[in-house]
């Protein structure tokens, strides 16, 4: 392994600009003559718009224009779309209501977009918005997830009279019923997977620009997938055809899923730029982010696990109601269906599984993918069930899991997935050793002596990453292919630009992708630059989500590098006057086998461009290759996380004392970056378990709309994490990578809750397990009640 090659903990090349304040985020982009947009948002969760009077606002100082949904309709601007078709179990397609970028006729959640004011300054736009008079007829709001279908009153969308988007199912129903009929024991749980607000630290922002000379648009936007944004804005929303629309996602300050989607604000900014003939800029205030970024999770689930007399799991039944909010966001329908149900088998050999998911509309912000997307929800179900079942059966939770692990591969589950490779026991053994499992009873006794409660919880998770191959996701309803593209441009001096359809918003691609290229071509890493996030530079790409950039994005680069090497060998053969088959390529040098005749990579690059040594009719000059890579399967990262907590029974405060993560991500490109991804994922998962709870009141007002109300995890909430890995090489891509971006967020919540319930001695606690919730739960503990 070289110092900058695959497997080396190379320091990040992008850091220099971030630590010196020279990053270029969308809010740092300023175009000459730009105007500023402010969005007037609905104060009501559900209301009919009877009239909008913008005259007074239009007369305010600095105001350039005020637009409403009527202007979008007049210009035939299409609505926002959901790009994944789900069919109900009766075969009917999901019921997608209209989703205009500015409300037309009705508002459906607090924060819904009613009008936009464009003015010389942001303050002027915001001031003028106060003068818009909207006459609302307020309707009853549908807020409660479990009760949405029976809420009565006016439905959120006409197309869905009982607020049901679809009734999805997966698995084998009859065998599952049969398994439950012969079960020796059935474990039942009811779970709420709490709604989360993603909160990337950079709020969403957009700058729309229009060039009158060429009639072309440029949109700078906080996007994880600028090409998908361009495709949707062109093909569905109709802003401009793709060759007349450039989308740039420069430095993006975190996404976690929330910046995958195509939103109203960016649509309006780029459309309005032509209307007003000036660039139009918008940057969300944090409260706007809380109100209108797509939220995550929000499931209500009943699940049952059947075991036989020997403690083998023989069946799993799950019924979930998933709240999709007021509109179907870009990929919302895929999250509680194909990103959820197929993962419910966990790491276990479960012969019969049947899952039903009813998706509902409500008068709340749209819900879509948030770090993990469906897989944390699935892991929470199966890992809570496994822990509770072990306790009910009087078994050690680690050994109960081990007894039910999948141990032979490939393993076909009853819910689509075919697990390719893994060694679940290896991760479990390493985690048990690292956490000092045998020492836990002594630690618990020591806590008890101090009047504290101590608990330990497991989470043995599996996820499906890459979100590919294209044909597979297409058969499941995806409206797009989920391959990735790469182009490798070798310059005449031997430096290399790699254009990738992946997008980096904190993951460090400028480092890891360059490590791959440096390793493969034997050139210094400083001679490699990674280009992403601009549809004028990179032809097409699918972007970054689902932990797919390594497994899919880098594999596309490998494929392009294969072609580069093939071509360079031909050039080298001509230069060295040897047969192509006699050329060896190693450590950046082409050598004629068995001789000392050689030429380095940079010289071959120069020869490819000067083209003096070969016949240009037989071999094209130049050295540039592109590739599209479509994997053969999802990847299946897995691992075991163990959380150990101590609870103060007087205050209900839970402190995490130990966190052990042992993950199998396949081959690691940069272990330093991988560890960082795990740390961040755990923090988000712990945030869900202990702190973060989205609260809408019964009228649909969002009560947690700032950092003063929504508790973000802070530095003092965590111990030092102990992060380790095991490795089984992924067989479905050339690098053997599985992906690491979401693991922590998937693994963490059940580990925390399993630890807390272990400490409490009962299962009655919901997320977030705030001090108040835990304090109350302690008072429900039978032995505590007896003691008091």
């Amino acid at each position, binding site marked *: 392994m070289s110092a900058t090659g695959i497997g080396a903990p190379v320091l990040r090349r992008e850091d220099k600009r971030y*630590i010196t304040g020279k990053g270029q*985020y969308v809010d740092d982009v300023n175009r000459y003559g730009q105007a500023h947009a402010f969005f007037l948002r609905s104060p009501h969760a559900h209301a009919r718009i009877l009239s909008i009077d913008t005259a007074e606002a239009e007369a305010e100082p600095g105001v350039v224009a005020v637009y409403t949904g009527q202007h979008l309709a007049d210009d035939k601007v299409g609505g926002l779309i959901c790009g994944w078709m789900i069919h109900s179990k009766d075969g009917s397609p999901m019921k997608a209501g209209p989703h205009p970028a500015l409300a037309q006729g009705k508002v459906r959640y607090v924060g819904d977009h009613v009008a936009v004011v464009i003015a010389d300054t942001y303050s002027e736009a915001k001031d003028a918005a106060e003068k818009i008079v909207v006459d609302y007829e307020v309707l009853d709001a549908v807020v409660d997830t479990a009760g949405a279908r029976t809420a009565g009153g006016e439905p959120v969308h006409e197309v869905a009279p009982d607020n049901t988007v679809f009734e999805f199912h997966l698995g084998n129903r009859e065998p599952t019923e049969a398994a439950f009929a012969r079960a020796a024991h059935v474990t039942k749980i009811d779970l709420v997977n709490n709604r989360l607000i993603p909160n990337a630290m950079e709020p969403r922002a957009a700058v729309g620009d229009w060039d009158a000379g060429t009639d072309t648009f440029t949109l700078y936007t906080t996007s994880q997938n600028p090409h998908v944004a361009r495709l949707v804005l062109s093909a569905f929303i109709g802003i401009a055809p793709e060759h007349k629309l450039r989308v740039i996602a420069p430095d993006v300050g975190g996404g976690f899923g929330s910046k995958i989607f195509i939103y109203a604000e960016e649509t309006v900014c780029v459309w309005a730029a032509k209307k007003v003939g000036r660039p139009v800029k918008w*940057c969300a205030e944090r*409260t706007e982010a809380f109100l209108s970024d797509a939220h995550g999770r929000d499931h209500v689930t009943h699940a049952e696990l059947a075991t036989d007399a020997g403690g083998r799991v023989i069946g799993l039944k799950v019924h979930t109601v998933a709240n999709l909010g007021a509109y179907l966001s870009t990929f919302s329908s895929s999250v509680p269906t194909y990103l959820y149900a197929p993962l419910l088998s966990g790491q276990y050999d479960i012969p019969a599984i049947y899952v039903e998911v009813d998706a509902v509309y409500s008068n709340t912000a749209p819900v879509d993918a948030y770090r993990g997307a469906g897989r944390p929800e699935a892991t929470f179900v199966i890992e809570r069930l496994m822990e509770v079942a072990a306790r009910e059966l009087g078994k050690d939770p680690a050994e109960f899991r081990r007894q039910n692990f999948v141990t032979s591969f490939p393993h076909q589950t009853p819910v689509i997935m075919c697990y390719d490779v893994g060694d679940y026991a290896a991760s479990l053994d390493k985690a048990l050793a690292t956490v000092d499992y045998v020492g836990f009873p002594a630690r618990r006794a020591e806590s008890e002596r101090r009047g504290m409660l101590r608990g330990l919880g497991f989470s043995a998770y599996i996820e499906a990453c890459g979100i590919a191959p294209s044909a597979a996701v297409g058969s499941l309803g995806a409206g797009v292919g989920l391959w990735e593209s790469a182009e490798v441009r070798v310059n005449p001096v031997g430096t290399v630009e790699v254009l990738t359809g992946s997008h980096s918003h904190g*993951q460090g691609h400028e480092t890891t992708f360059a490590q791959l290229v440096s390793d493969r071509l034997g050139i210094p890493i400083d001679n490699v630059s990674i280009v992403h996030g601009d549809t004028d530079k990179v032809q097409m790409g699918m972007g970054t989500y689902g932990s797919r950039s390594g497994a899919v994005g880098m594999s596309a680069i490998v494929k392009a590098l294969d072609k580069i090497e093939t071509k360079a060998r031909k050039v080298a053969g001509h230069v060295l006057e040897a047969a192509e088959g006699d050329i060896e390529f190693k450590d950046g040098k082409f050598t004629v086998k068995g001789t000392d005749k050689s030429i380095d990579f940079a010289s071959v690059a120069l020869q490819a461009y000067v083209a003096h040594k070969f016949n240009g009719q037989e071999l094209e000059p130049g050295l540039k290759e592109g590739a599209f890579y479509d994997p053969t399967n999802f990847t299946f990262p897995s691992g075991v996380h163990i959380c150990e907590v101590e609870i103060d029974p007087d205050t209900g405060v839970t402190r995490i004392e130990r966190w052990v993560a042992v993950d199998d991500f396949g081959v690691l490109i940069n272990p330093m970056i991988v560890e960082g991804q795990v*740390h961040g994922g755990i*923090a*988000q998962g712990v945030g869900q378990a202990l702190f973060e709870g989205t609260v809408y009141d019964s009228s649909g007002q969002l009560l947690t709309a700032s*950092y003063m109300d929504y508790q973000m995890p802070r*530095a003092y909430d965590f111990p030092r994490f102990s992060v380790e890995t095991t490795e089984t090489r992924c067989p479905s891509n050339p690098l053997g990578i599985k992906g690491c971006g979401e693991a922590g967020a998937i693994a963490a919540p059940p580990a925390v809750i399993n630890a807390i319930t272990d400490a409490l001695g009962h299962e009655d606690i919901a997320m977030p397990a705030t001090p108040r919730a835990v304090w109350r739960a302690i008072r429900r503990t039978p032995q505590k009640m007896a003691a008091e």
Partner: protein
Amino acid sequence: MPTVSMTVNGKTVRRDVDPRTLLVNFLRNDLRLTGTHVGCDTSQCGACVVHADGRAIKSCTSLALSCDGMAVTTIEGLATGADLHPMQEAFRQHHGLQCGYCTPGMIMTAIDLVARKGHHLDEHTIREELEGNICRCTGYHNIVKAVAAGAEAMKAPAEVPAMAAE
């Protein structure tokens, strides 16, 4: 419009401003120092931390006019030429950042922390003192390591023998 003047990163600046202009917008929009970020508008997240007369403040909730006559340092003012400030270097060495958005505020807070609490910072102190800075990417693990290392590295070379003799 009233006039505000202050020293920013060692340079005297003077501008007419709308009285409601926040310091962060003055820095970002008037002076084009876009390294200081706005993350929350409510003094919670710390992405906007700068130093005013040597003290860390949240520039998203400070009026530019209230800083009249002050010496303000932003993230852009830390490095000397190509030489990074030791705290900047520590964040890089310890992978204390991912998306980079909270990073300028983290670094400015960390330097202020060293000024207040010295060069030997234990993990507990660092975690408590980062109360006003939110990061969504890193889980804080490597930020804590970076702050500890940066604090040590900020010891002036002349001080090192004295510290070693302790």
